[in-house]
């Protein structure tokens, strides 16, 4: 088997994070791939929840949209969007939520609204979707994003979704239920909030990646753990399953 790409490693690390977890909230793209991979390899009983209202979906293919027919046809239960947000997400019934973003700051706050000024944006992004309430209420949040200076920024152009706000204590002051972001998984490594300050800290780097390379890809002076772990390489089983899934 050819060596894993950094993107494949990112997906496998995200999937591993779902070991032992009961339920995961996912959007499309890499998070969806990771969650389906987790059901194949790490956690066959994992409950996949999409904001389209499908609870316990068991897709065979990676869906293009969060509302593909296969999700509804294989779900344990399909509920309306108001019910999804009011009865399932709001009360914190979902253990882990995977979120992406165009910009991430040092406290894992997210921007998916605009680049530039809100009223005259340089780039108009899709907007909030379900992210603000998902991030506030799910048990924990795992951010999955490509590691680049334009993504990992000193200052968000727009705060769409609160991660850890301005640091320790911010979520509690806002009355949020969930623990917030516990990891940011990139194609270079894994950042985790410092237990005391909640500032993102590089705790793990993927094989072949240098710490300096991660610093350069980050738009602020990145905190680095004394001895960042090296991501265990994807196993043949993981990589085989991922590639098989991607080929379906």
């Amino acid at each position, binding site marked *: 088997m050819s060596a894993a790409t950094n993107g494949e490693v990112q997906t496998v690390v995200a999937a591993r994070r779902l070991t032992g977890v009961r339920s995961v909230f996912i959007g*499309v*793209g890499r998070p969806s791939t990771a969650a389906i991979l987790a059901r194949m390899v790490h956690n066959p009983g994992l409950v996949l929840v999409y*904001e*389209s*209202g*499908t609870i316990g979906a068991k897709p065979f293919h990676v*869906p*293009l*949209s*969060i*509302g*593909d*027919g296969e*999700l*509804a*046809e294989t779900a344990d239960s*399909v*509920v*309306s*969007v*108001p019910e*999804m*947000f*009011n009865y399932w*997400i*709001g009360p914190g019934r979902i253990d882990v939520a995977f979120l992406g973003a165009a910009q991430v700051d040092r406290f894992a706050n997210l921007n998916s*609204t605009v680049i530039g000024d*809100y009223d005259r*944006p*340089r*780039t*108009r*992004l*899709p*907007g*909030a*979707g*379900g*992210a*603000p*309430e998902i991030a*506030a*209420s799910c048990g924990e949040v795992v951010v999955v994003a490509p590691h680049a200076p334009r993504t990992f920024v000193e200052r968000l152009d*727009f*705060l*769409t*979704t*609160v991660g850890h*706000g301005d640091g320790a204590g*911010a979520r509690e002051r*806002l*009355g*949020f*239920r969930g623990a917030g972001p516990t990891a940011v998984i990139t194609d270079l490594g894994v950042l985790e909030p410092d237990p005391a300050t909640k500032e993102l800290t590089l705790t793990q780097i993927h094989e072949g990646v240098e710490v300096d390379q991660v610093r350069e890809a980050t738009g602020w002076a990145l905190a680095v753990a004394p001895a960042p772990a090296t991501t265990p390489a994807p196993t043949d089983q993981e990589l085989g399953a991922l590639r098989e899934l991607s080929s379906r």
Partner: protein
Amino acid sequence: MAELLPLPEAVAALIHDGDAVALEGFTHLIPFAAGHELLRQGRRELELIRMTPDLLYDQLIGMGCARRLVFSYGGNPGVGSLHRFRDAIEHGWPRALELEEHSHAGMANRYAAGAADLPFAVMRGYAGTDLVAHTTVGTIACPFTGEQLTAVPALRPDVAVIHAQEADRDGNVQLWGIPGVQKEAVLAARRSLVTVERVVDALAPRPGGVVIPGWVIDAVAEAPGGSRPSYSLGVTARDNDFYRAWDAISRDRDAFAAWMDEHVLAGTGAP
């Protein structure tokens, strides 16, 4: 009581210039045929309401019929940007677009409040985000615990348009699969139009079936394939290739205009 009408007549009767119109359907059952008919009839100055603008609103916005957009997620799911939506916001092309932007939870609760004919809904949300300063939300204290919560104003569109798999001859409608906010949209709106894949003699109860009685609907119009390139579970499949192809078609203003001319304005009704 729902009247069974040809789609052009239903659109002409129910949707007027300047209306606040919600064409709903969450990925599934998006009423493309009705939206295209609205374009062919040249409706202008619309306030378009929809949680997920999707390709349909990209088309309506790109054709310049929207004055205002109320939404919560404007992307091409799994593909990327909605280029006509971006062009309108970033460059005011073909015209400036006023925005009212919410989260999904906010929009869903706004529809639910509208369906219940309450002026607002209570939820937890928006707190700590920049959205608060750029949209209509309020705070409200629980009279029992004192906890501060978020209030969102009810949505009451002039017209709701949805697509369903089937209706009977009395205009009772049944949809199944992902139900989204369609029932709420119909109940929240002053008027409503439902397009359906087929009209049947009697609705056979289905697993996951959501039945909307004909007496809360104004018009039902038969429109086979009317949700394509979205889909109607059990009848048509989502045309994921078209969603991918739309990225190139919509990226360029002229290519977009040519495509719309050929595929929509010419009246074929194909996406």
